[in-house]
């Protein structure tokens, strides 16, 4: 926390200084603007985004520790660091943590911070719901991990927790209960977030920001939130059925009663396959922002980029059974899902070709964000190709449950999603914190990570094809798996070194920046293209002094650059002259609130009640109800500020001095 707390608090808070805070409702409206209270009651999408990032980074360390334990156990034949039982718990929690508590919230961090900025809005559509989704996620993640301490061990059924293995008979501890209820809570967070962000993108774009002028990152996030909206309810059903079976004695996965365990697999993967696109598309969006900036060219084939993302979103719902080829679905289903899986590789391939075409012929700046982006393109391609081999059902039947699968999804999730997220950290750090990360350390971070990553997961292809099963806690020296396992274990320590370099870079860059007298990187350190770079760094609390009017895709770029007669880009305006100053006064912002935190705090207590003793649930339900009713009767914004009921109509800036300023700004803007 310390790392991020210092900077944003120094925001020029011109926006809110004049607002008189009157208590209304049961709890007094939180009034603090600084310190931890300002963070726990904030409804500012930027602070919420930062908190998402910090919590996700914390869980990344937890998940990384679990990964290290797995690799240590497998470093030798007949390893004895973890018992078979603990090994099951560790790989389960590693998967669950990395998927639900690291990559999803890190992507949510970028979505929260950037979506309103990229579409020219002052906040999200429902600022308090945004805070609620963060707190629910945090409590859900902590609840899940508390199974280590009070649940008799973590869940031991793998991240997809197949029935009937997840039943009380085979998983007698409370681990699976913590899994089902913890994911349920985390799912609520994502569902709230998805409704919020979709409404934000559809409803709150700046004047002229048509859908097809939105940056690719915003588009990819829109697709992701749609996927979340329609896939989460399915896992919600599955988790409810699992909870009911375990806690109330129903028979959904009770094979002795004639239940069908494949029901779980279907429900899980109808959610689970869209989920993998939920994990990767945000990173696709991030590199689609970075590559054009660093290659000094507009993105190649913007409509193809957008439509391939939409196509991935739709087709993502039609390929789930390729996770189940080994379960005896029957030849028709297998053939159909094989084909659909091959087809979904097409839009993904379109994206890769478009990134390469964007780089092609560009004057590429090889800085850290660009290296990570190029790393994503290369590593994801490997993972994508091994993914296509799974579409071929006979081969997949052979590969199911081997390390080949483990290699594949780490190439797409680590080599794809995580490298993209790191690219995003380096790229947007100056916008978020007002200082640049050290580029030299960043390059070290990249190369060390790339080497470590390939050493860890590359050999798993070989191990898998040799027949090494995943989720088995050990192997024999006669199996011939020893050498590549040792290489993989070496690799995980190199990845760890890379991560330490990143964390050191955060601290080091901050210190040198402070020692140098806190130089401001300026609004646009990368000479970039999208709207968030047209406002000061770090982003002022009110985002935009004047809500911009948009006249083209990459509008900000066109304000800076025109074309000469040979079609080459020439500077027509300095960044300083087109960027906003961040000094607007009296911009109306949504007021902070205690209720999101209170409401969210009720949920894990209800969870404990379901697992241990129904009486525990009572205070949880009361807290929950108190939160809801307090919320409902607290106006989103303090009265007296504003006439409208919709809180924070970002459109317009019409009742501020903005309207007057907007007109000259539009005339300056070069179009076409």
């Amino acid at each position: 926390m310390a790392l991020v707390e210092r900077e944003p608090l120094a925001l020029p808070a011109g926006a809110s200084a004049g607002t008189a805070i009157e208590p209304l409702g049961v709890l007094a409206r939180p009034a603090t603007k600084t310190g931890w209270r300002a963070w726990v009651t904030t409804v500012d999408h930027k602070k919420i985004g930062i908190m998402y990032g910090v919590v996700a980074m914390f869980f990344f360390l937890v998940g990384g520790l679990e990964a290290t334990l797995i690799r240590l156990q497998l470093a030798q034949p007949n390893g004895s660091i973890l018992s078979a039982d603990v090994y099951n718990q560790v790989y389960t929690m590693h998967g669950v943590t990395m998927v639900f508590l690291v990559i999803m919230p890190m992507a949510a961090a970028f979505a929260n911070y950037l979506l309103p900025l990229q579409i020219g809005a002052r906040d999200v559509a429902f600022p308090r719901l945004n805070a609620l989704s963060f707190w629910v996620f945090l409590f859900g993640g902590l609840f899940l991990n508390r199974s280590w301490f009070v649940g008799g061990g973590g869940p031991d059924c793998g991240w997809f927790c197949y029935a009937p293995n997840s039943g009380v008979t085979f998983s007698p501890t409370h681990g699976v209960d913590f899994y089902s209820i913890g994911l349920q809570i985390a799912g609520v967070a994502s569902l709230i977030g998805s409704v919020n962000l979709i409404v934000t993108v559809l409803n709150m774009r700046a004047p002229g920001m048509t859908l097809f002028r939105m940056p690719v990152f915003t588009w990819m996030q829109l697709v992701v939130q749609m996927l979340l909206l329609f896939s989460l309810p399915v896992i919600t059903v599955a988790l409810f059925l699992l909870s009911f079976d375990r806690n109330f004695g129903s028979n959904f996965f009770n094979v002795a009663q004639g239940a069908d365990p494949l029901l779980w697999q279907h429900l899980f993967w109808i959610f689970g396959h869209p989920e993998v696109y939920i994990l990767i598309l945000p990173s696709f969006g991030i590199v689609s922002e970075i590559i054009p900036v660093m290659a000094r060219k507009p993105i190649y084939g913007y409509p193809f980029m957008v439509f391939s993302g939409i196509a991935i979103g739709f087709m993502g719902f039609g390929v789930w059974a390729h996770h189940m080829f080994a379960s005896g679905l029957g030849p028709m289903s297998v053939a159909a899902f094989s084909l659909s899986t091959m087809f979904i590789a097409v839009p993904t391939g379109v994206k890769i070709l478009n990134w390469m075409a964007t780089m092609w012929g560009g004057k590429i700046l090889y800085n850290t964000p660009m290296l990570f982006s190029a790393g994503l393109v290369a590593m994801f391609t490997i993972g994508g190709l091994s993914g296509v081999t799974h579409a071929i059902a006979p081969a997949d039947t052979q590969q199911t449950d081997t390390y080949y699968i483990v290699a594949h999804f780490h190439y797409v999730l680590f080599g794809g999603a995580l490298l993209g997220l790191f690219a995003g950290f380096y790229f947007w750090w100056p916008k978020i914190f007002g200082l640049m990360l050290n580029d030299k350390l960043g390059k070290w971070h990249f190369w060390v990570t790339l080497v470590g990553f390939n050493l860890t997961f590359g050999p798993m292809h070989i191990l898998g094809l040799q027949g090494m099963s995943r989720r088995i806690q050990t192997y024999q020296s006669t199996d011939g798996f020893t050498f590549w396992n040792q290489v993989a274990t070496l690799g995980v320590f190199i990845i760890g070194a890379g991560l330490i370099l990143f964390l050191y870079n955060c601290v080091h860059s901050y210190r040198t920046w402070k020692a140098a007298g806190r130089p401001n990187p300026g609004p646009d350190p990368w000479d970039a293209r999208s709207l968030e770079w047209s406002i000061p760094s770090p982003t002022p609390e009110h985002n935009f002094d004047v809500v911009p009017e948009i006249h083209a895709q990459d509008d900000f770029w066109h304000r800076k650059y025109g074309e000469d007669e040979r079609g080459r880009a020439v500077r027509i305006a300095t960044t300083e002259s087109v960027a906003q100053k961040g000094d607007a006064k009296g911009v109306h912002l949504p007021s902070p609130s205690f209720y999101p935190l209170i409401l969210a705090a009720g949920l894990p207590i209800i969870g404990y009640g379901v697992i241990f003793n129904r009486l525990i649930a009572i205070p949880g339900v009361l807290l929950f109800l108190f939160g809801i009713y307090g919320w409902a009767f607290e106006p989103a914004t303090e009265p007296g500020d504003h006439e409208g009921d919709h809180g924070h109509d970002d459109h317009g800036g019409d009742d501020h001095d903005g309207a007057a300023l907007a007109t000259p700004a539009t005339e300056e803007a070069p179009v076409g």
Partner: protein
Amino acid sequence: MAETMTAAADTGHHEAHDDHGHVTNTGISNEKLGMWLFLGSECLLFGGLISTFLLYKKKLNTFPGFENTTVNKLGADLFDIPFTSVSSFVLLMSSLTMVLAVSSLQRDDQRRTRLWLMATALLGSTFLAGQVYEFTAFLNEGLGFTTNIFSSAFFTLTGFHGAHVLIGIVILMTMYAQALRGRLTSRNAEALEIAGLYWHFVDVVWVVIFVVVYLIK
């Protein structure tokens, strides 16, 4: 290229002027759009539950040991179709009273708004009471939540729907209390309209459940 860009920019410009004021890009308020999205998500929630029910309704009598017992023996013959038809009718009528409540509020007719709100909540409660009666009758016949896969799926599906109705009633009663205090006026008619969207959705889902669970053999 430049021309199309300019043309596009012009369109954008006009939109921008139309947008001026408090109108959103889509013309639908944030709150209403949010409710529509949430209801879209709810469709998949009930979709998952209904699929589960259909799977287990068909599957039960193909299971070894249960070959000679029909689904009817294990639950469906307990259904009292005339009774459930009446309670379904009651629930559907509550959609009508909901519409009347919204339209009264839009005309700022406080008295009728309260009347129709209360009527909607009472009709919903009547439906719930019918469900409680039905569940109790099943329990007395020996068909509990844990009896077999059919009963687990049945109670879960209808129970989830009942919980939705209950939440709807709580929302309506909250609005009724607000109306009594004079805080529900035509200015926030949209809030009631959004609550109405939820209420109608819950009714429509019941139509599907009623057909799938009770009417299809």
